[in-house]
């Protein structure tokens, strides 16, 4: 802790005045800024610039003021007050936005749609018996199995192949690029590929144009039961393969080259090297990537929401959560679905965190 005997003490009156002025300025900026943001309507550009500076500035100011207040106390008080000031805001926000909501959602899941009457396990019974929910679970399983395996396998193949190419970074950048695109943006991109204009009209959708060029019939792909789920899963694979590739590529580069060279000298084929050396060596990263994509496919929402809205047999659990709450206004059902999601994710994430702690990827 600090050594106050080395600091030249300031005039206490002057210090108090400074503190009061700082407090007053903070109150004015925080309160005034809030009112200004609410009331000001003239120029959107001014509003945006103001919002950015006010939001970031206020946060910095808040810490400065709290710390200045904290430092006026005696050393003994400071020893526990300063850590509280440093960590307190984060803990308050975490409590408000994550801890409390989890408990509240858990509570709401036992109440009826308007959260007034206790209904016991009825909402959970609904979640596991309602036909729409069962369809959603089935589809989530498709996403989980095909989305995850597609992403990881493709990512691995590209990582291994790119490692042998002279233009490695260029190839990787192109595959990685979709990571920067929003799911909504990706939805538009792929909706355009799957576009269908009707019989006898010039195709503007790439997929139909290809099908027709090979002598097939154009289709309304997104309404084609059975197929449409896979066409949506392709979007996720397109978006996430870059992620799998980057992590796996880094892991492959971490394999000592002597190990591979030695087995090559011993006459191992490339396939043997791949399955007996590369795969076992990158197992940790492979598990991290798989679990991350797995969780992602469980929580998937945006793609389905934008592409089909969950119609034509493509509904998923996270979209049904949204529909129950915001279309049907059934808070009980929605809360139960959210809790089911949480329970599905917890074991995967705990496993992931444990793997992660062992790997210590962040240096």
């Amino acid at each position, binding site marked *: 802790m*600090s*050594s106050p005997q*080395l600091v030249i003490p300031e005039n206490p009156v002057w210090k108090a005045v400074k503190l009061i002025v700082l407090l007053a300025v903070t109150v004015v900026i925080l309160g005034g800024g809030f009112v200004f*943001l609410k009331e000001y309507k003239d120029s*959107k550009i001014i509003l*945006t610039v103001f*919002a*950015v500076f006010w*939001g*970031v500035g206020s946060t910095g100011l808040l*810490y400065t003021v709290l*710390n200045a207040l904290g*430092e006026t106390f005696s050393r003994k008080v400071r020893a526990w007050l300063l*850590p509280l000031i*440093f*960590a307190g805001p*984060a*803990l308050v*926000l*975490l409590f408000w*936005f*994550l801890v409390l*909501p*989890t408990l509240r*959602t858990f509570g*709401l899941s036992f109440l009826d749609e308007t959260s007034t009457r206790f209904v016991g396990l009825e909402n959970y019974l609904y979640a596991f018996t309602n036909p729409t929910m069962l369809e959603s679970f089935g589809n989530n399983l498709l996403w989980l199995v095909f989305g995850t395996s597609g992403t990881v396998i493709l990512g691995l193949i590209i990582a291994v*192949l790119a490692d042998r*190419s002279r233009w490695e970074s260029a190839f990787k950048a*192109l*595959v990685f690029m*979709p990571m*920067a695109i*929003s*799911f*909504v943006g990706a*939805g*538009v*991109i792929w*909706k*355009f590929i799957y576009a269908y204009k009707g019989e006898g009209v010039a195709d*503007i959708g*790439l997929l139909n144009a290809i099908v027709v060029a090979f002598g097939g019939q154009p289709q309304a792909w997104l309404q084609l039961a059975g197929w449409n789920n896979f066409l949506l899963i392709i979007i996720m694979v*397109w978006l996430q393969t870059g992620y799998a590739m*980057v992590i796996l590529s*880094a892991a492959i580069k971490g394999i000592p080259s002597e190990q*591979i060279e030695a087995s*090559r000298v011993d006459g191992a084929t490339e396939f043997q090297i791949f399955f007996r050396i590369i795969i076992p060596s990158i197992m940790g990263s492979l598990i991290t*990537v798989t679990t*991350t994509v797995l*969780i992602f496919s469980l*929580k998937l929402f945006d793609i389905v929401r*934008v592409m089909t809205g969950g119609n034509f047999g493509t509904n998923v659990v996270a979209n049904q*959560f949204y529909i129950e709450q915001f279309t049907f206004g059934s*808070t009980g059902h929605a809360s139960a679905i*959210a809790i089911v999601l*949480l329970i599905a*994710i*917890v074991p995967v*994430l705990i496993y992931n965190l444990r793997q992660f702690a062992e790997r210590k990827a*962040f240096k």
Partner: protein
Amino acid sequence: MSKKAQEGRKPNPLATLIVTLILVAIAVVWTVPTLGVLVTSFRDSKDIFSSGWWTVLPHQGWTKTGEIELDAAVDPDQPITIEGKTADFAAWRAGVSVTPDRQLKWVGNKRTRTIEVSERRWVGFGANLTMDNYKNVLSAGEIKYKDGQGQEISRQGNNFTDAVLNSLAVAIPATLIPILIAAFAAFAFAWMEFPGRKTVFILVVGLLVVPLQIALIPILQDFTKLDLNGTYLAMWLAHTGFGLPLAIYLLFNYIGGLPRDILESAYIDGATPFTTFVRLILPLAVPALASFAIFQFLWVWNDYLVALIFLGDRNRVVTSALAAMVGEKGQDWHLLTSGAFLSMILPLVVFFSLQRFFVRGLMAGSVKG
């Protein structure tokens, strides 16, 4: 398998060629979808509705080269002879090839007596590109465009200008605020003594498992009570709350790994924890801060669910504006493609200019729930 390994072994030219071909094929598949949207966003709306975007590439195709007005004496109910070919009305209506490279087609009903001539030619060199789609999608007022038949349609614009500004007003503070709060907390967890430090930190990391959906309904109820729905502040708070576990975890790993000597010498020089943090720790932690910043910025900018619920139709951000457009005007590809591209520009620029930091953040951030 680093570059060293490759130098050590004789490259097999055939294997190298196959690898390169596979990679090129993959790169094409990965790029073409985005390219299609980019090209389309610059095409004339009439062209977008009547032909695929790939037709801007040079290719052999049919182009209209002229029209023939038939004499009033020609009886459409009898076989008609034009340019040496004889066929009935139905056949002319469907189109008749005079030579392999020249096609004649009756347009409209029997009374129009107009024959359209098209020839097979190399086309696509002078693609008809325009910025109108961008002008239209950014506009808040009335917009006009042509449909596939060339008819003019007027609509209310989608005001993407406001959406982009809203996205900036949401994303920049929602990136910087959690970083600041998390850095303070990470410093406290790493270098300050207080009871229960370890337990609380483990609980914070444990919150990584909570999926977003869990928090939405209760938080929406709170925001409704506080009258915060539709405000930037609501979005900053929500994204800060949801982003904090990962931010604290990552920054703790970095800040906790800084050498103890630096801090001790600062304290001996009489620095308070606050000045040590601001003057010493924050500048030293810039790589970690940047990694998380890019991660969080892309996450917030591309987020749809949180914006959909807490902003609603007030202060629409680009993702919700785009999604609304898909719902309302699902076939207006000239607006959808330019809107989609507008939503992608900033994240793509951030991504490509700061890719190294992003990759580092991604490696570390593989644990978000």
